[in-house]
């Protein structure tokens, strides 16, 4: 299916009250846009709106100032109803320089609001953004509401009492802008002020200057004569189930899920990894959590990382390794060793644009084929995928549970979007998490490493240091009966079938596939996996509100697939599979179930927009009605 975009109903910023808004903060890498976004997100969460955020930063660490490729942006979609994506189009754009304006303007809705720092629209910066004429002066912004302010001038005035250098003073620009946007949406500044005090404990004058800038920006909104059509917008709080909430990124949720897993399994966890974008933050987060049963190891390379994790599992801990596509490719031989020796191993793949170095900071779902089959030999492993930032918590626990229960590698698929995106999370009750304590093999007479559980087919897990369980394992094929090396042809057939049956048997241990939204049979099912959840969910919801018979199915367990999935899919006339790849799940579904599934593929490094999936759904129905 062709990828086309449908424009969603736009809530023009005319009314005093709007139901949802997309705000995008964009500026130079050094402008502090990520910090600005994070503070606005916190205030918005505290206000009670539902929200979803996505930071969009360049691959360059410190790009030259003013360059279009150095624009760093932070987008937040918030509103009164459930929000599951970072938004299709921008309602309010904050552009700290011409480069930020030129790269983001195409996505601003007509009638949207653009806030620019006119002081940054110098000839030099305009040239860097390839503007022939200053867009603030040539009428090219006439279709939008424009707040054209010399922010630098206001900031310098606001922080004057604090004796900062000119450069330091200008660094407060982001807080001034944040103050203004907080005024625009009636947000409370208290949490930001507290955060600034904490962040700059050792430099109280910097903290005070930033707070002064924040307040000055807010005061500007309150007192300045603003162009007509720009006023305070009120967004009613969302109705969400009662509980304690926090905002969380996919990376943090995944890290905390691994911590929870080690507690629930009552086992030490070794997280062995090698730095790679966008997976490194997981290593960082866990390195700060060694007060739990967590050790972290920054290995010399991707191969050493997976091998150290396998070594830890052999020694009786749970080994976990993590990377993105290129690194996972390097780990393939190690993963197969864990499969052959039947040791538990969790492999987290935070997917990014490929092939090769590809688009390291952009998102994609193109490693599904590799996860399912990217190994030498007949080497099945379990594969599961997280569908939203908060889902990463649960999926991490589930990956660990399956790895331990089935003595197998499990690949957990996340992606660059999930890793960095954030959303509010109803904090689960720790007491309600299901424990799965590890039982290592107790001492026994005539021990054989080939002993296995009759139900799960999982091999026993003897822990070195236990007297009487001395044994040898390795990558050479082993005898089904004794665990010793065996080159016997019939034995290899048996062991290969055993490995296959063991993974297939996991299907008995996982929930049946549910339909998230809509009927369990009908005209059209939109089937997704991973981070496309939010966009599919909103699209299906809106289409159903328009009366279309469409359902949303989202697959967490990709190997093995849920037992009822085939039957479920047979119940729909048409199946649409949106994926951020060229059609990896759709091919799997077609070959597994012989269903006429059709793909909708986006490989731009950007997440799906709601409108793109809606357009595809409408096209499906148009074909049905033809």
């Amino acid at each position, binding site marked *: 299916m062709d990828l086309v975009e449908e424009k969603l109903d736009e809530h023009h910023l005319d009314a005093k009250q709007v139901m949802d808004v997309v705000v995008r903060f964009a500026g130079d890498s050094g402008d502090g846009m990520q910090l600005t976004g994070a503070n606005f997100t916190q205030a918005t969460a505290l206000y009670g709106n539902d929200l979803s955020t996505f930071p969009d930063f360049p691959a360059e660490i410190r790009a030259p100032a003013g360059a279009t490729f150095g624009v760093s942006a932070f987008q937040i979609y918030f509103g009164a109803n459930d929000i599951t994506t970072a938004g299709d189009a921008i309602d309010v754009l904050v552009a700290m320089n011409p480069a930020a304006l030129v790269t983001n303007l195409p996505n601003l809705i007509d009638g949207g609001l653009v806030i620019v720092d006119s002081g940054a629209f110098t000839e030099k910066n305009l040239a860097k953004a390839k503007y022939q004429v200053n867009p603030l002066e040539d009428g090219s912004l006439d279709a939008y509401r424009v707040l054209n302010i010399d922010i630098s001038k206001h900031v310098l005035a606001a922080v004057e009492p604090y004796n900062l250098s000119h450069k330091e003073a200008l660094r407060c620009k982001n807080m001034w802008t944040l103050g203004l946007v907080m005024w625009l949406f009636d947000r409370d500044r208290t949490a930001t002020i507290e955060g600034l005090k904490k962040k700059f404990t050792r430099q109280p004058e910097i903290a005070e200057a930033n707070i002064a800038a924040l307040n000055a920006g807010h005061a500007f909104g309150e007192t300045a004569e603003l162009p007509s059509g720009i006023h305070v917008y009120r967004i009613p709080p969302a109705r969400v189930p009662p509980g304690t909430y926090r905002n969380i990124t996919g990376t943090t949720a995944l890290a905390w899920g691994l911590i929870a897993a080690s507690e629930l399994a009552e086992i030490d966890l070794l997280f062995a990894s090698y730095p790679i974008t966008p997976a490194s933050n997981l290593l960082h987060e866990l390195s700060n959590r060694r007060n739990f049963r967590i050790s972290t190891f920054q290995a010399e390379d991707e191969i050493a990382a997976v091998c150290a994790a396998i070594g830890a599992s052999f020694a009786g801990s749970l080994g976990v390794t993590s990377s993105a596509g290129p690194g996972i490719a390097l780990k393939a031989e190690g993963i197969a060793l864990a499969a052959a020796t039947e040791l538990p191993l969790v492999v987290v793949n935070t997917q990014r644009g490929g092939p090769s170095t590809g688009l390291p900071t952009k998102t994609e779902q193109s490693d599904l084929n590799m996860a399912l089959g990217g190994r030498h030999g007949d080497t099945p492993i379990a594969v599961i995928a997280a569908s939203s930032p908060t889902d990463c918590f649960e999926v991490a626990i589930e990956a660990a549970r399956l790895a331990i229960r089935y003595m197998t590698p499990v690949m957990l698929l996340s992606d660059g979007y999930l890793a960095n995106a954030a959303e509010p999370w109803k904090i689960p009750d720790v007491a309600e998490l299901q424990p799965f304590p590890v039982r290592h093999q107790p001492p026994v007479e005539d021990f054989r490493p080939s002993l296995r559980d009759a139900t799960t087919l999982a091999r026993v897990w003897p822990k070195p240091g236990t*007297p009487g369980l001395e044994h040898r394992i390795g990558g050479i094929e082993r005898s089904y009966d004794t665990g010793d090396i065996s080159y016997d042809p019939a034995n290899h057939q048996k062991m290969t079938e055993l490995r296959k049956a063991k993974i297939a048997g996991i299907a008995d241990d996982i929930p049946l596939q549910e339909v998230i939204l809509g009927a369990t049979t009908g005209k059209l099912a939109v089937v997704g996996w991973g981070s496309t959840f939010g966009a599919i969910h909103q699209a299906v919801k809106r289409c159903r509100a328009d009366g279309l018979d469409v359902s949303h199915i989202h697959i967490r367990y990709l190997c093995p697939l849920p037992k009822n999935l085939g039957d479920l899919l047979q119940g729909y006339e048409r199946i649409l599979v949106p994926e951020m790849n060229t059609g990896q799940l759709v091919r799997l579904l077609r070959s597994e179930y012989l269903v006429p599934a059709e793909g909708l593929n986006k490989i731009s490094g950007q997440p799906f927009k709601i409108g793109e999936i809606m357009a595809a759904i409408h096209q499906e129905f148009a074909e049905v009605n033809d």
Partner: protein
Amino acid sequence: MNQALPKLTLKDFSTDQEVRWCPGCGDYAILKTIQKLMPELDAPKENQVFVSGIGCSSRFPYYMNTYGFHTIHGRAPAIATGVKLANPELDVWVVTGDGDGFSIGGNHMLHVLRRNIDLQVLLFNNEIYGLTKGQYSPTSKQGTRSPSSPTGSIDLPLSPCEVALAAGATFVARSIDTEAKHLGPCIRRSYEHRGAAFVEILQNCPIYNDGVFENVKDKKSAADNRIEIEHGKPLIFGAERDRGIRLNTLTLTLEVVEIGKGGVNVDDLLVHDESNKVIARLLSTMTGPEFPVAIGVLYSERKNGYVEDVREQQLTIRSRERGDLKQLLHSGNTWQVD
């Protein structure tokens, strides 16, 4: 309590697996020496873990009745690191060969040594790829004729001990497969060393590289072609014990001298000092025919290892505040919805 453990013997460390090295392989002798040494180490059998990569030498764990893990090509040091990180109480042994340890697994070798992980690396160096049928290896002498170098290998070989020292190994020794009286004590010292201990064992491959170390092993020629080094002793060698190694202080190089000739006496010879890395480096590079090959402990230094420091950090962190999951989930900014 305090009950003496039954004394183990060589047999307790042998498995029921048929040993499948070629007849005459040096690996047999090494296996025997280690199986014999094990009961003498006074260490619990269940705490011994042998980790290997791929190659002839890497079959070793199958023949040791301890915990064993035959892994993948070149990765034994990385897997052993994971074992040791998970359980520092275990005695971890890495068994590897010249191809496994210095070609495909060269990177891991550097890092396991530089991190000073408390384990023993036993490098069976036969200067050839055996299991893949005789190709030249990274330690093969230049000009080695093999199936993949029919007109002689071109690469310059590396010296394992020299690389180990450069990588920061805190214990480096060299010994010979069939000389149990020398090899046994060398391995024992490596076991007693706290930190990464590297032992290069010159091992004969009778099929693909037979006799490559003959000049240092043969009873007639060995005395002139090797020097057994000992801490605190002057460097003397030769069938008549009439030759020695002297440091030329002007060129900072070693030279072979004859004792009693040209005014040279024993006092002029270099005295081996295991704690001196400069001496260790100089000795590690000595090769024939100009120099005798040094065997014995080249270097030994006590230094904290990675695993020890990891433990220490961990203890500090955990004593400060043991992690509480509920507290973690509720840390930072939260809000209540009623």
